[in-house]
């Protein structure tokens, strides 16, 4: 296991994931989600494997991977910080907080730090709009986000 909790690439493991989900109607998305959950991203070699098992072209599967914002083609940082950038959070000052996070982490939105420690990304609404601003930090929901919380995260990520 990686420090991040993701498994290193393994074709056998990938084949297993595909076999587990192949029976589903419209199985592409469930397979891609499962692949990303295990490996942290969608490794390139899995694309032809999915294509073959679902009787699709590589281009079709590639098209699906690239269409959806959730699917990563590179491994994420060990910490993934997603700050909500949608309107309700903006009304509560999310943009200033995002700028603060960028400065504190030394990253721009959408970047992963060179040491692989942290990824900073926007997300568009977590349904926490009555307790804005909000964030999803390593899979944990955070409402009423403030600078203190960002400082804590930055400290955790060693910034």
């Amino acid at each position, binding site marked *: 296991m990686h420090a991040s909790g993701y498994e290193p690439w393994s074709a056998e493991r990938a084949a297993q994931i595909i076999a587990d989900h192949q029976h589903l*109607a*419209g*199985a*592409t*998305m*469930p397979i*891609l*989600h499962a692949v990303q959950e295990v490996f942290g991203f969608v490794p390139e070699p899995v694309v032809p494997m999915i294509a073959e098992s*679902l009787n699709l072209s590589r281009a*079709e599967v590639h*098209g*699906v991977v690239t*269409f*959806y*914002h*959730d*699917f990563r083609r590179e491994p994420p940082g060990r910490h993934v910080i997603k700050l909500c950038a*949608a*309107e*309700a*959070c*903006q*009304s*509560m000052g999310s943009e200033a907080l995002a700028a603060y996070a960028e400065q504190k982490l030394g990253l721009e939105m959408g970047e992963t730090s060179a040491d692989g420690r942290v990824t900073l990304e926007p*997300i*568009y*609404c*977590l*349904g*926490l*709009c*009555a*307790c*804005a601003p*909000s964030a*999803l930090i390593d*899979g944990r*929901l*955070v*409402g*009423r986000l403030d600078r203190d919380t960002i400082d804590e995260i930055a400290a955790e990520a060693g910034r």
Partner: protein
Amino acid sequence: MSTPRIFVPNDATAIACGADRVARAFADAFAARGIEAVIVRNGSRGLFWLEPLVEVETPAGRVGYGPVKASDVTGLLDAGFMDGKAHPLCVGVVEELPYLKKQTRLTFARCGIIDPLSLDDYKAHGGYLGLAKAVQIGPAATVEEVFQSGLRGRGGAGFPTGIKWRTVAATAADQKYIVCNADEGDSGTFADRLIMEADPFCLIEGMTIAGLAVGATKGYVYCRSEYPLSLVVMEKAIAIARKAGLLGDNILGSGLAFDMEMRMGAGAYVCGEETALLESLEGKRGVVRAKPPLPAIKGLFQKPTVINNLISLATVPVILEKGGAFYRDFGMGRSRGTMPIQLAGNIKYGGLFETAFGIPLGELVYDIGGGTASGRPVKAVQAGGPLGAYLPISQFDTPFDYEAFAAKDALIGHGGIVVFDDTADMAHMARFAMEFCAHESCGKCTPCRIGSTRGKETLDKIIAGERREANLAILTDLCQTMKLGSLCALGGFTPYPVISALTHFPEDFGAAPRLPAAAE
């Protein structure tokens, strides 16, 4: 005396504000003090400014405390929390709070009250009476009941649900589907999420009724990936319902079959559009389909499909239980029944407010919502999500009604209202609308795909004060092209927030400030 019960919501907002830590602190304190009590993880009642709202059962009713932090637990117990005694965080008997008392909770009647995963609780509060009725009166009468209720789709377009069901019922096929649209991408909305986390059996019952009514045996819930907790709760509820024979081959002994499964989106706003959603369910890129054919005729895997918003489906059980006429009695004009209005953004009392159609916007923002959270004056609200117009205070007399909003070039959409205070820069918000459209466009049509990027660039120039008049003319023209030339409402409605911001707040776009006398 039975074991005392306390309630700590297992709801995304409550958890995002510390509910899990609070539940743990209570469990620890109970163990340390030798208190015997049950901690029920209920759903939220939707009074989000109070979350985590912890309740304790007392002879007077359920007394609430909120917002509670883990560090408050010792003090609460010392003050007599278990007996509902006074404390600075005490809000009294929760059901007596004006915010709840003023509501008409039909779809959300059980939310926050029951244990979301207890079938017994669900049934004790009217659950599965709707399905029993549907089984009793049969498919055709069930569709008629929904038609008679006047229910219109709660996903945004407001199409009569009964008519959609009639079409699917009348279309013969070897397989039909019920698809629940739980993509809930609009900023400022959380009604779908609240049902999934607080009353999941209500959705399961609604989809089952839909299946029996139109002859569909399989259902899918397409839930956005931004709702991880909803997915977990729904999966558990589906398993429980299956085990209890409420999903499967012989529902309630009727001989009728229906089963369902959860599917997860992947962060594409456009997949809330029904045909893009169907493409996505089929495992493809979420590109919008041209209509016709309607999904009701050729939907999922080319089969007749009812695709409804989650709230439309979750409202069906109460319609069947109490009758279409009962539901239709609420509301105004052609907007029948109740709407779960979601008060969000810069608002003091943010949360879910279910009420009959017709309530004026201003009453929602000020009387119910308490004005801004920042304490500054309200500048505008955006209603209906990222494709909805910005309404200034001068339009706050508009009643919450599909047609009244449409008459102002505005949208009630999925019922979200996002409040902005006077620090908001409306040119900036207009630019965001274009940027969001560019980010989320499925790419099928040029006005949306290219127009939104041009729109953003043009707004950048206007904001920079570059050839203002000429660029405003370009922007207006571009918006017209997007409105007329887009296949779906992503490209087609993005002009509404842009043009409304420009119309009502020209000073934010560099115009000379209006004199008070010239104001509307």
